[in-house]
């Protein structure tokens, strides 16, 4: 016993000593700032992102092995280090980084975060620092570009995009006696009637946030706010918005939509329910192709536009933007890399590994090269972004909190949407 305690002390002392020594040697300040101002010294850029995609290295490989070397070759004196951050933790890492002034030179962030970080002063406004910003911006999809706007300036450029389309299976169409995917609200309701008694749910989704319900509201001719983002009342609770949500509620109460949509995390997920013909239709994005190929090799998904209502077929824009934190001391070099991300070279290389281009010309080229992207590219032409305001995450909370009681019947859709609109009005007023 005595000996092992002595050993413990020795270890502790050695460890403490090692700590002090390495601590001292490791604490040299970084030279980045000096390097940037000198101009001739090499500039080392750091970029954070989530291309790692759960151990699937296809995207990081293209970035690290092809694109970054190509950029470095054409921009002598600039090096780029890409650091992969776990997806669920990127926002937390950006937040703590902003608080301590420890942010990278570039970041690939969710489109919903740009106004939020911009309003806090974390991001550099690219339209003021890049003289060719308008040219670059005009080449991208308007729906994607809009997610970068905040308070009269643009704080990023679109990097990749996606949207949700209607996905169904031949087995479900057969069971409903239909020859093609439902193209309109009416056809969707017909399909629901045809599926009654088969044990197959018409449609499934996993929540009631903007990402989930806005395609229905927009397609039904409704809106969430006016164009100037000043009020939600009169838009979110308009007759068209209410009718679209009412359709979902009616289907839910007729058991054609399972309680996954109201937050039962124990229900079969959409990605499992569709291939197993438990669900006839879902709304989903282009990333599902790889997942299904791996998990359900025998399943052939059928992609179609979101069913059209009075407002046409309108889906929701997803994707990522590239931003430059205002704290970066290498703004010019970072802007060079942002320019590079908008090139056909970058956009098309990423398209091959599952990232849809945001530059319209590259988008059509990618859709031609890989017909799989065609329905998504078509849908993107009319797709809209969610509210580009700093409190977009609160909008999601409001929508799902207020709509849940409407689905379980404890309140009406009209009341739920009116309440939601009032709360969103308050957010708009404060921002």
């Amino acid at each position, binding site marked *: *016993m*005595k000996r092992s305690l002595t050993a413990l002390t020795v270890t502790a002392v050695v460890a403490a000593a090692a700590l002090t020594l390495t601590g001292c040697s490791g604490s040299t300040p970084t030279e980045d700032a000096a390097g940037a101002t000198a101009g001739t010294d090499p500039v080392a850029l750091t970029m954070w992102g989530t291309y790692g995609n759960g151990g699937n290295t296809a995207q990081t490989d293209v970035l690290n092995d092809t694109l970054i070397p190509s950029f470095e070759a054409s921009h002598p004196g600039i090096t780029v280090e890409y650091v992969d951050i776990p997806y669920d933790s990127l*926002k*937390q890492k950006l*937040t703590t980084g*902003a*608080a*301590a*002034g420890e942010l990278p030179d570039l970041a690939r962030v969710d489109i919903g975060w740009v106004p*939020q970080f911009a309003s*806090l*002063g*974390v991001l550099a406004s690219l339209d003021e620092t890049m003289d060719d910003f308008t040219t670059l911006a005009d080449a991208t999809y308007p729906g994607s570009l809009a997610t970068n706007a905040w308070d009269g300036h643009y704080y990023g450029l679109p990097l990749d995009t996606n949207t949700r389309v209607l996905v169904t299976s031949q087995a479900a169409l057969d069971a409903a006696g239909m020859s093609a995917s439902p193209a309109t609200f009416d056809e969707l309701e017909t399909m629901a009637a045809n599926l009654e008694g088969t044990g197959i749910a018409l449609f499934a989704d996993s*929540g*009631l946030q903007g990402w989930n319900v806005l395609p229905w509201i927009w397609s039904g001719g409704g809106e969430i706010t006016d164009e100037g983002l000043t009020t939600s009342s009169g838009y979110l609770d308009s007759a068209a918005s209410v009718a679209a949500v009412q359709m979902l509620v009616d289907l839910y109460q007729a058991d054609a939509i399972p*309680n996954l949509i*109201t*937050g*039962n*995390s*124990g*229900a*079969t997920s959409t990605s499992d329910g569709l291939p197993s013909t438990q669900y006839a239709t879902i709304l989903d994005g282009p990333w599902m192709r790889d997942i299904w190929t791996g998990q359900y090799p025998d399943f052939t998904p059928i992609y179609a536009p979101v069913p059209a209502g009075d407002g046409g077929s309108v889906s929701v824009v997803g994707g990522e933007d590239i931003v430059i934190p205002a*704290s970066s001391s290498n703004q010019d070099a970072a802007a060079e890399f942002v320019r590079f991300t908008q090139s056909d070279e970058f956009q098309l290389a990423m398209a091959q590994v599952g990232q849809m281009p945001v530059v319209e010309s590259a988008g059509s080229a990618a859709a031609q090269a890989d017909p799989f992207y065609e329905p998504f590219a078509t849908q993107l032409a009319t797709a809209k972004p969610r509210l580009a305001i700093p*409190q977009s*995450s*609160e909008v999601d*909370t409001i929508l*799902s*909190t207020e*709509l*849940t*009681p409407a689905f379980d019947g404890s309140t009406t859709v009209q009341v739920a949407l009116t309440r939601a609109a009032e709360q969103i009005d308050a957010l708009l007023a404060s921002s």
Partner: protein
Amino acid sequence: MLDRTQSVAVRATESVSVARTVRRPRRAIHVTPYLFLAPALVLFCGLIVYPMMRAFQMSLYDWKVLAGATSTFIGLDNYSRAMADPTFWRGLANSGFYMALSVPPQIVIGLLIAMLLKAKSPAQPVYRVLFYLPVVTSWVVVSLLFKYLFADNGLINYVSGDLLHLGDGSTSWLSSRWTALIAICALGVWKGIGWSMMIFLAALQGVPKSLEEAAVMDGANRWQRFRVVTLPAIRPALAFVVVMLVIGGFNVFTSVLLMTAGGPGGQTEVLLTYMYRQAFTNLDFGYGSAIAVLLTVVVFVLSLVQMRLFKSGGEDER
């Protein structure tokens, strides 16, 4: 040296009920205890207490995340906002429910297993490892697993409905507030038993066997021996486990986030998931800090009350 202390130990434990404090001559303020405290205290105050005070300070501001940004002092506004926020109260109630439902089983079952495992035999180390395995398995993995166990067509519904016919086997456990919280509690209990077992095992090693054997001679049955000999001897450990589990219960976070994410419609939101959402999703650090401070105050008061209760019943007081 070991043998000598042990024989001293045995002699001493025979009079275990005698007061336990070292009685030292009254002297001027002794520097020794501070020397023992200093290294840990310096680290603790510098790296925990100081940030704690900064976090409290944040709660008094409309705090801007950005380094160097000017935040507005708003006094207790964040606190009055919490008082008027139904989600805060629901989170507090849910955290409290989780604590109340998950703590007693962890104590009772953990102690029971420790009693069964304290004897020395070749099989005991194997059992100990088996009971400790849930503690070391990652929260992410076990939360995912329990989500599947409690899924609509998961194992729990299969066993209760198809095998035992206790219900129709179609309970949507995770679709409503209380059933979802029960599922989360089940995970907490399952994962926590090994932890309390460990503490009790360590504590039971200190129960003087001579006393227990004397009790057997006196004809005491198992329960009497437990109550008269074991329980008083492990009292400090029991106090520790109770206080820690209550704190841990109020701080439930990862399992909720991964099993229900606070849903449906915010019904299973607990205080820490709500705090996390305010701070790291809405970037409202002032409000997030206020929620954290309120949680800390509730738990601190509860802990002091518990420790007082344990003290007043104890005999080893100074």
